């Protein structure tokens, strides 16, 4: 396989076929990368054993300090202690996550949730970044393909000798382009 990649296999001497073969070899790698990306994106926190901690980090303190409930260290905060106690009660009672969060939303308003819900218009908040990523990947792939398919310049029938400033210019360009 590596011999084939290196251009010493059957495609040797045919750059287009070799390039296509290289592409097909890399395709599975891209698929794996895509799968890994999707897996990464879909992974979420789900440690049920630390529900209090997890739920407490999914809510904001309602005092207006703009801090996560369990991180609010606002001196003399009249909300965080009470809210933590209410959360503890809900967890002890065995309320589900949704029920607990819903109870807080009803009491303190929708801004108590630290992130948008995944319902209604709020779903757009979650979709857009991924949509932008997918759209961007599509766009970059399109650009790459378009650039690669640009027609190559036909070589001149006979090499034209260059001298002086022009030669120096080509030397500089070659140095610039080959410098890693």
């Amino acid at each position, binding site marked *: 396989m*590596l011999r084939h*990649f*290196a*251009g010493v296999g059957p495609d040797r001497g045919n750059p287009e076929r070799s*390039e296509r073969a*290289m*592409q097909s070899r*890399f395709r599975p790698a891209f698929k794996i990368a895509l799968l890994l*990306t999707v897996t*990464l*994106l879909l*992974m*979420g*926190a*789900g*440690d049920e054993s630390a529900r209090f901690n997890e739920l407490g*980090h*999914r809510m*904001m303190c309602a005092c*207006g*300090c*703009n*801090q*996560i409930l369990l*991180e*609010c*260290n606002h*001196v*003399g905060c009249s909300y965080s202690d009470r809210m933590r106690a209410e959360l503890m009660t809900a967890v002890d009672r065995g309320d589900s996550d949704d029920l607990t969060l819903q109870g807080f939303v009803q009491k303190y*308003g*929708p*801004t*108590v*949730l*630290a*992130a*948008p819900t995944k319902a*209604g*218009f*709020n779903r757009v*908040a*979650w979709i*857009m*970044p991924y949509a*932008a*990523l997918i759209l*961007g*990947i599509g*766009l*970059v792939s399109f*650009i*790459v393909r378009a*650039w*690669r398919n*640009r027609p190559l310049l036909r070589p001149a029938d006979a090499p034209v000798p260059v001298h002086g400033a022009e030669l120096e210019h080509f030397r500089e360009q070659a140095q*610039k*382009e*080959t*410098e*890693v």
Partner: protein
Amino acid sequence: MSQIGSFALLLALALSGYCFLAGLMALVRDGPGSARLAETARRAGIATFAVVFLAAVVLVVAAFQNDFSIAYIFHHSNRDLPAPYKFATLWSGQEGSLLFWSLLLAAYGLVLRLRYKTDTRLFAYASVIIAAVQIFFLLLLNFAAHPFAVMQGSLPADGNGLNPLLQYPEMVIHPPMLYLGYVGFTVPFAFALAALIMRYPGEKWIHITRRWTMVTWGFLTCGVFLGAHWAYSVLGWGGYWGWDPVENASLMPWLTGTAFLHSVMMQEKRGMLKTWNMWLIFSTFMLSIFGTFLTRSGVVSSVHAFAQSSIGDWFVGFLALIFATCVYFYVKNRSHLRSEHKLESLVSRESSFLFNNLLLLVACFTVLWGTLFPVLSEWVQGTKVTVGPPFFNRVNIPVALLLLLLTAVGPLLAWRKTSVESLKRNFLWPTIGALGTGVLLVVLGIRPWNDASYFYSLMTIMLSVLVALTVISEFVRGGRVIARHTGQNLFASMVQLAHRNTRRYGGYIVHFGVIVIMIGFAGSAFNQDKEKEMGFGDKMTIGPYTLVCQSYTQDDNPNYGSEWAVMNVFKGGKQIATLNPERRFYKASQQTSTIVANRSTPLEDLYLVYEGQNQDTGRPIIKAHLNPLVMWIWVGVWIIIAGTVVAMIPNAVTVRVVAPARIHAAPVGAD
């Protein structure tokens, strides 16, 4: 005093106006007198700096003289404020910080106008554009947010004092660094727009712009991380980044600026992405202005935004004007930005830059989207929602991991096309090293399948190892070649190698700094915290540490009263430190603030916060955080600064050996 300041601001506006108009006329009318007109415009630009500097000095002197007849000084200073913070009064409030912004812009303009001989015409265009931006800020200062507005009625005996959160040594340097970054992006923007307007031939402007962008990017990086360190040390919630709108405002131009620093290489080397680069630098500047708008308009709620005011409308108008100008000149001169080359292979340096830019821009879009979604939500459904850390972490961490992967792969791909042999040669050992690290960490007890945060941490560390090994291998490989030829030792050879191509190896050092920071971030998955009311001799255990409350006491000085606890820290039965978490009550502003006690080691930070006092028992409530690897974040920033400095050093001159001319021998027997 206020009259001198007011006059200076008006004069600065007049000088900027002249610099703009005369400079513009000199560029448009290419007549005999235009050179002299351009010179007067340049000098007016230089004089603008002197006059804005005078206004800033007046404000600082007023703070030191406790001149509470000036409303700004009354609101942001008081008699007992320590001297360094009186100096910091300049940027502590809305009006003063706008004056500071204007001062920095004038200073950048000064440097640019003094270096005009580099390319007289390009610099003249850039000078006019900077003058236009300067006019906007001076209009704001003169007519919307006047720092020398005087108090009405009888003079107050003392001022309201500086916000306690700002009374911390880093606040004396964090805002200037951040502003140097924000304001600095005006210069590359001015050069880019100037090059577009004048259809500048060649790539010289991009060299100039890149250098300015690097300086600015370095300042912004320092500013962002100083802010993070300040939040960690002062806010006392145990973290350093809260995805607050103001933090996000500084991150967005940083992301696009980073994208530009990468993609600009494609323009320099291959003449590609010209339009893209132009818009990247336009966007970076507009995001800097947008960040200022977010901070000052009150459009989003934030921990440390300035007061809500009407200047938001000014910024919206200014942004619209900038955007319209950029679009107009782009449409007019876009033919000048045609690409010179084509992409030859998907596995090449060029495509890695494209994906790098894509990921950086997606990250930027996500931050922008999350920051503005509450406003959008209120507009669409009538109710505001919160977009906080859970959203940003969940969306941005995967993008950051992909970027880290590209950081490892990208620099080792060749321009145009990379062979499989080269990929194998460059990545085999780093990949084995990264996988080995992953296995080792699992053996040591990290269970990525238990929690997403553990998984992300493990991936971050593995990818960081991959980047580190590729960077090290690049240095070693190049160093060995030089060592073979020169007989120097490997380290000296690597230094020489870096000096030969400072930008490339400086960039590698920056990448190394980034991974050190990422390792610091990875530690946050293993944070622990505990809270306890602690009387004399009470104990609390967190991780390997046992904290014993030795005493708690109070103190008082003219600026603030304080309460603190004396906590002895034991590890393995042996006392290793004494920490004093403190809470202060600032008298002038009637506000409280925490002073965190932090014992930082390479492995973990033991971070103690004085939460308050139990009113019934009078005993302090102490919250202890154990934050692994945080120190590496700050170490990483130093490495990034070092890398940026290296990248800005000119390359060592390479001696080019010229091949002797070929001598054509006369054919034997020709005659």
